[in-house]
């Protein structure tokens, strides 16, 4: 048994090989998970927004309103100011999307889409687009570019500082993608490795494999709980950092 192959198989995306008129359609396990998560969010939130009078409906409505007020008062307004109010739907969606993608990986036969660099890069690209849009909307093209030069910078230092600031912003956005990808990937790698302990030890002796069952499952349970925590944490971090970066271009030096 090649352990690396098993881990790769568990972590890597699998293309379903769908083509349309000779072109490849990217239908993979991760994109299917993404779409499933999107559908669940869409239907769930649409149902909640209808304000059903049942007990569950009222409970979910209250919960959702609390969630929205948390994102608004804890993430968007402190970092972006009142200007960020119009972007509230984006941040509410971003947090839930990242969270549900991470939690979906804990459901058997489903994958963690955010453990795919292409998915996290796409999310970071959207955040980068938002940052760019905020800069252009509130300061115009020239003002946005001027914002990259800190106030009080001597004239001769501007040619050096300006590209550095631009690169810094690009790196910040890239780091968003890498941070989320690395966190999700490492958690799932640890989970599969803990499960593999049983089989690796079992190959040595069947009794040893049975003995390793309980400790490995205990660790697996612990790691799963940790993964749930990490899912919430990473969703919060991704949303928070996006709002901070967007706020930094709205309220320049």
């Amino acid at each position, binding site marked *: 048994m090649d352990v*690396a192959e098993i*881990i*790769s198989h568990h*972590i*890597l*995306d699998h293309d379903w090989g769908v083509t349309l008129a000779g072109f*490849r*359609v*990217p239908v*993979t396990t*991760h*994109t299917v998970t*993404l*779409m499933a998560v*999107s559908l669940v*969010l*869409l239907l769930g*939130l*649409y149902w*909640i*927004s209808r*304000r059903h009078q049942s007990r569950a409906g009222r409970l979910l*409505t209250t919960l*959702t*309103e609390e969630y*929205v*007020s948390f994102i608004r008062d804890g993430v968007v307004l402190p970092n972006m100011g009142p200007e960020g109010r119009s972007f*509230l*739907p*984006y941040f*509410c*969606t*971003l947090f839930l*999307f990242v969270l549900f993608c991470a939690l979906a990986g804990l459901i058997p036969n489903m994958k963690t*889409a955010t453990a*795919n*660099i*292409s*998915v996290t*890069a*796409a*999310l970071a*690209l*959207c955040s980068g687009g938002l940052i760019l849009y905020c800069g252009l909307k509130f300061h115009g093209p020239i003002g946005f570019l001027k914002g990259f030069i800190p106030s009080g910078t001597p004239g001769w230092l501007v040619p050096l500082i300006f590209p550095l600031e631009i690169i810094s912003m690009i790196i910040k956005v890239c780091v968003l993608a890498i941070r989320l990808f690395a966190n999700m*990937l490492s958690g799932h790698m640890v989970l599969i490795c803990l499960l593999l302990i049983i089989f690796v030890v079992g190959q040595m002796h069947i009794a040893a494999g049975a003995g390793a069952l309980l400790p490995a499952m205990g660790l697996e349970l612990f790691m799963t709980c940790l993964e749930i925590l990490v899912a919430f944490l990473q969703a919060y971090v991704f949303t928070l950092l996006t709002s901070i970066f967007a706020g930094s271009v709205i309220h320049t030096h």
Partner: protein
Amino acid sequence: MEDLLKPDYGVLVLTVCNFLLLVYLLKKFAWDRIISGLEQREKQIADDKKQAQDARAAAENIKRELDEKLAQISDEAAKKMAEAVKMGETQKEQILSAAKEQSERLLEQAKAQIEAEKNKALSDVRGEIARTAVLAASKVVQQQMSEESAKSVVDRVLNEIKAK
């Protein structure tokens, strides 16, 4: 394992489209309604809170006014009570002085009356004595003296009585 870091541009584009479409649809069909509901509820809570604060302020104003009125009434009552006590004292003094005057007057009258009665009684006694004396004298005279000597004796007796 190196495939882990190899980007799949198809997945990337699909994810971007999927996410942006999700943001748009959720904004249109869910978030706008949820956010407006939340803001409405917050506004209602703020209005209720403001109303409660206004009502409390109004109640405090009424209480303050009532307290002021109560204090004013208490002052007036105390003032009137003091006036009544003062008036009572004055009336008491007047009644006492009037009673005293009246009693003194009555006493004077009684004294005068007693004096008059005394004088009258004395006069009566004198007359009675005179008559008795005359009677006695006449009896003596009838036996020993003439009418003229008897008369002089009587006059002398009478003068003596008057002198007393």
